[in-house]
């Protein structure tokens, strides 16, 4: 697997969430994602960026273009230094929220991605990684 391109973007304010949507859209278009594929990864990115601001005190997004020789894909890594998530399984359940949201962010982002990984521990921040491959539903 080869990373063909990478970029880092700050995620600190509600305006940054909009910037993240535009950044991810631009990269997805560049990779030739279909409109539905673009919309899914942009929406997932929007959920995770907002989560990071609401619950992680902000952080950063690392975006990577991938090429494994057969497929092209987009990987997004959201990393914050916030309080961390004590119960990841609970946080992934729809409707679970510790804040004012609807609790669709994590579970929704997972459903909208082909690959999903979350690393978190109390006091150690949270890292959520999602990947979408072109042509994989």
């Amino acid at each position, binding site marked *: 697997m080869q990373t063909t391109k990478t970029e880092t973007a700050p995620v600190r304010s*509600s305006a940054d*969430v909009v910037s993240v949507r535009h950044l991810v859209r631009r990269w997805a278009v560049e990779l030739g994602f279909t409109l539905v594929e673009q*919309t*899914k990864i942009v929406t997932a990115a929007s959920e995770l960026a907002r989560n990071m601001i609401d619950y992680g005190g902000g952080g950063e997004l690392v975006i990577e273009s991938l090429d494994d020789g057969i497929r092209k894909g987009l990987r997004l890594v959201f990393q914050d230094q916030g309080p961390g998530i004590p119960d990841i399984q609970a946080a992934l359940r729809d409707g679970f929220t510790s804040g004012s*949201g609807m609790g*669709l962010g994590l579970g*929704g982002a997972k459903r909208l991605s082909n690959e999903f990984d979350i690393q978190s521990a109390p006091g150690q921040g949270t890292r959520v990684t999602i990947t979408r491959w072109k042509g994989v539903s």
Partner: protein
Amino acid sequence: MERIPILKMGKFLLVSIQIDMDDRTAMTLQDDLTGQIVKHRAKGVLIDISSLDVVDSFIGRMLANTAAMARILDAETVVVGMQPSVAITLVELGLSLKGVRSALNVERGMELLQRIATDIESEAADADDEN
């Protein structure tokens, strides 16, 4: 912060969201709309989202809440013009926008609002006849 304009047309309010809103802009629109419904005694609200290429859970919730608040204020809300890719994504995200009426485009949305408003008026007239 940008503000989304709200147009008044007869008994209805029209909104066309033409920009990618941040969360604050979305909340302001919700507040502005509920205020304008009361101010103009509006019977219906039409929200055109055909320019939106993303509706995430926050914007989805804003649309659902606006419809719920409008209903309590005696106005119906119709969301029109949702792009198919947005609809597919919303359902997968887990948001079904229950309680939000929708129509394919502005024209059909206006027809729907007119019909609802006429139904309500004739019901009121029937009730008057019975008394």
